[in-house]
C-alpha cells in the first residue's frame, strides 16, 4: 500500500511538474517577438547589452536581473512596453510599442520577462 501511494505521488508530482513547466516555457512566437523588437537594445543574452546599447545615455534594463525585475510589477512592465519608458518615469529611450504590438502580445512578453528573469508574476 505504501509503495502504491509512493508511486502515485511520483506520478502526480511528475504530472504537476510537466504542466507547470509547459506553462512557464515561452512560446516560440513570443521569443520571436522579443528577438525582433527587444534584442536590438536589450541584447542577445537579454542582459541589456544590445547592439544599440553602447552609446545610450541610460542603459537598457537587464532582463536577467532577478532583483530589479522582481521589484517591478506586471502592470508596470506592461505599461513600459506599451506606452514607453516615460509612462513609468523611466527613460524616453524605451519607446512606445503599443502601435506595433497588440495588448495580448505585450502580455505574453511580460510573462516571458518573468521566465527570463526567473521572477514571479506580481
Amino acid at each position, binding site marked *: 500500500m505504501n509503495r502504491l501511494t509512493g508511486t502515485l505521488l511520483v506520478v502526480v508530482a511528475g504530472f504537476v511538474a510537466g504542466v507547470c513547466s509547459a506553462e512557464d516555457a515561452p512560446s516560440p512566437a513570443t521569443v*520571436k*517577438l522579443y*528577438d*525582433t*523588437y527587444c*534584442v*536590438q*537594445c536589450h*541584447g*542577445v*543574452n537579454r542582459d541589456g*547589452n*544590445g*547592439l*544599440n*546599447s*553602447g*552609446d*545610450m*545615455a541610460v542603459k537598457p534594463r537587464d532582463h536577467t536581473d532577478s532583483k530589479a525585475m522582481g521589484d517591478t510589477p506586471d502592470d508596470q512592465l506592461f505599461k513600459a512596453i506599451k506606452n514607453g519608458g516615460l509612462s513609468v518615469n523611466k527613460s*524616453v*529611450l524605451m*519607446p*512606445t*510599442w503599443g*502601435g*506595433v504590438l497588440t495588448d495580448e502580445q505585450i502580455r505574453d512578453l511580460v510573462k516571458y520577462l518573468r521566465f527570463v528573469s526567473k521572477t514571479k508574476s506580481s
Partner: protein
Amino acid sequence: MKHLRARITLLLGTMLLLPALAAAASGEEILQSQCASCHALAKPSDASLDRLWTRKGPDLWYAGVKFNKDWLVQWLQAPTVIRPAGVMYRKAVKAAGGGAPDVIDASQVPAHMKLGAADAAAAADALLALGTDAGLVQKGAFKQDPPNVAMASLLFNKLRGCSSCHAAKAGGPPHSGPELYSAGARLQPDYVVEYIRDPQKFDPHIWMPKLELTDADIQKLTGFLMTLKQAGAQ
C-alpha cells in the same frame, strides 16, 4: 524627293527612338535579373513577421517614392553600408560577453553587388517608377519649413531617442536601424515624413517603433535629416 525626305526623317526618328526604348526595357530587365532575387519589386502578399526574418533585402516596391535618383545612380555603382547589421539585424548580432554591447558577425552581412554606369542609370529609372501610385506618400507631406538644426538635432539625439538606433554621423558604432547620415542625399523628404509617422505602413512588423510624435516634431526631424548628406562607408 518628298518621299525620300520623309523616309530619311522616319529613319532618323527610328534611330533616335530605338536606343531610348532599349534602355527603358533594359532597366526593368536589370531589376528582374539582378535585384528580384533579394528585393520585392511588387507589394508582397505575405505581410507576416516571418517574412521580415526570411527576406534577403529591403523591399523596393515603393522605391519610386523613397529614393532620390542621383543618389541611386551613384550608390548602385559604389554601394555603401546602409544597414550595418544587414536587412534583419537579429540574424547578424551575437553576444560579445563581458558586459560589452552585442557585435555584428560580418559573415552574415553580404556586400551588395555593383552595376556599371549605364546599367545603374537604367535601373534607377526603373526603380523610380515603382510604387508611385500605391498611395503611401502624400505629395507635400514635408512642409519645407527651414529647420532649426540645433533644436532638431537635440530632438533626434536626445529628446525622441532616434539616435539609439540610427547613426546621424559617419564612423560611429553600428546600430540596428539604417544609417541616416546620408538621408538627405538618399531619401525623398515626403517619404521620411510618412515613414516616421507610420513605419509599419511601409514595412509590416518592422522593428522601428511608431512613436507618438506631433506633426511639428516630424517636420523638424525630417528637416534635420534632409541636412545630412555625408558619404557612407564602402
